[in-house]
């Protein structure tokens, strides 16, 4: 279908461009390592406290790093007014949203796949639950973050102070996502029962669906010239 062919083309373009420069993923990785190190200085790395705040550290690192990627996401499109060319070629502005969102999701997942094991090693954390469940939570959390983040990044890139504005408008809206992701991660790391994490997974799933569908409808108004 034409629609998804365009989403794929946009995604391909972003991936090729990133593979060429490796700007985004490499700076995201360095940043997430830095955040991790800052946390180990802030809390005593060997103490029991660290075991309790570990899920929070994971998500704080992911989200602060994710903001970096989101801020860059639309700046590349503004360079030579590419966004104009994109809009003159795309059948629908939803294509641009879905393509960019998938790209941001992939960049974040790559960063997370490297950061997560490092976190486990540095804090010497042993998990009791299932790694597959942990991956599902990370994927669902990242998906929702990439969805609303891409949308608000398209909005903030057109303002006078975009890089400061994005976290300020994004963080309040992701409160439910952050709570659910941290709680679900905590329960799963501790090897909790289905009943303990199923609620949180439901919130994550609902958030992902709502904040993919609604921005997809509203992106027309954001990317209007």
């Amino acid at each position, binding site marked *: 279908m034409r629609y998804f062919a365009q989403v794929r083309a946009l995604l391909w373009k972003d991936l090729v461009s990133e593979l060429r420069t490796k700007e985004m993923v490499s700076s995201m990785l360095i940043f997430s390592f830095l955040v991790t190190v800052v946390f180990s200085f802030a809390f005593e790395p060997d103490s029991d406290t660290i075991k309790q705040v570990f899920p929070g550290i994971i998500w704080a690192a992911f989200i602060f790093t994710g903001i970096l990627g989101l801020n860059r996401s639309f700046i590349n499109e503004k360079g030579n007014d590419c966004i104009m060319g994109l809009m003159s070629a795309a059948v629908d502005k939803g294509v641009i949203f879905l393509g960019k969102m998938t790209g941001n999701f992939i960049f974040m997942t790559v960063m997370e796949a490297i950061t997560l094991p490092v976190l486990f090693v540095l804090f010497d954390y042993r998990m009791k639950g299932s790694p597959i469940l942990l991956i599902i939570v990370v994927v669902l959390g990242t998906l929702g973050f990439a969805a*609303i983040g891409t*949308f*608000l990044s398209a*909005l*903030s890139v*057109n*303002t*006078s*102070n*975009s890089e400061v*504005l994005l976290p*300020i*408008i994004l*963080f*309040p*809206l992701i*409160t*439910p996502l952050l*709570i*659910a992701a941290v*709680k679900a991660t905590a329960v799963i790391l501790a090897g909790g029962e289905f009943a303990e994490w199923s*609620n*949180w997974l439901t*919130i994550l799933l*609902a*958030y992902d669906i*709502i*904040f993919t569908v*609604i*921005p997809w409808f*509203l992106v027309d*108004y*954001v990317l*209007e010239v």
Partner: protein
Amino acid sequence: MVRKVLGWITFVMVLTATYLVFLWVPNEKVMGPVQKIFYFHVASAWIGFLAFFVVFIAGIAYLVTRNSFWDSVGAASAEIGVMFTTIVLITGPIWARSAWNAWWTWDPRLTTTLVLWFIYVAYLLIRSSVHEQEKKSRFSAVFGIVGFIDVPIVWFSIRWWRTIHPVVVDSSGLAMSSKMSFTLIFSVAAFTFLYFYLLSNSVFVERMRSELSELKEALLNR
């Protein structure tokens, strides 16, 4: 004319509400006079929610009609909403200190109100970071819609988050005499009038401002 009448009604209502709260209604037995803050606290919280709902509706109306009237309504309502939510967040701890012996608790209502405050401060920040009028209206309408849709999800997630911990506080068990509940209902009504009065005033000022810029433009193009 309508604004003038509304202004007088609001004046009388707020005056009466102040009388009821401070002189008429009896003190609560345990907490004493501090409890009176409750009448303004609840009324402000109600105005906050009402104002943000109006921002949501005005956002949809703006995107559909592209009439800048709706943008003025949304902007004015968000400002009023943030103001009243700020009042809630200030009066809340004063009440909490004497009722629960703590300035702040991460109770679902308080926490949701705090997140709400952040969302609409973000709304106002978007408005001040965009300089083209049309883009400003469009962006803030979009954010007003997304922000409001987020509110129930915030509420549920925070409620589930907190119920995992033992419930320390329960304000629903508050016993109210009939005089108290009458005063509460009356002050909520008074604040609602105040809200509409403030809203109509800001929208009026905003209208005058855009009329002025239209006239200026017409003069320049002559």
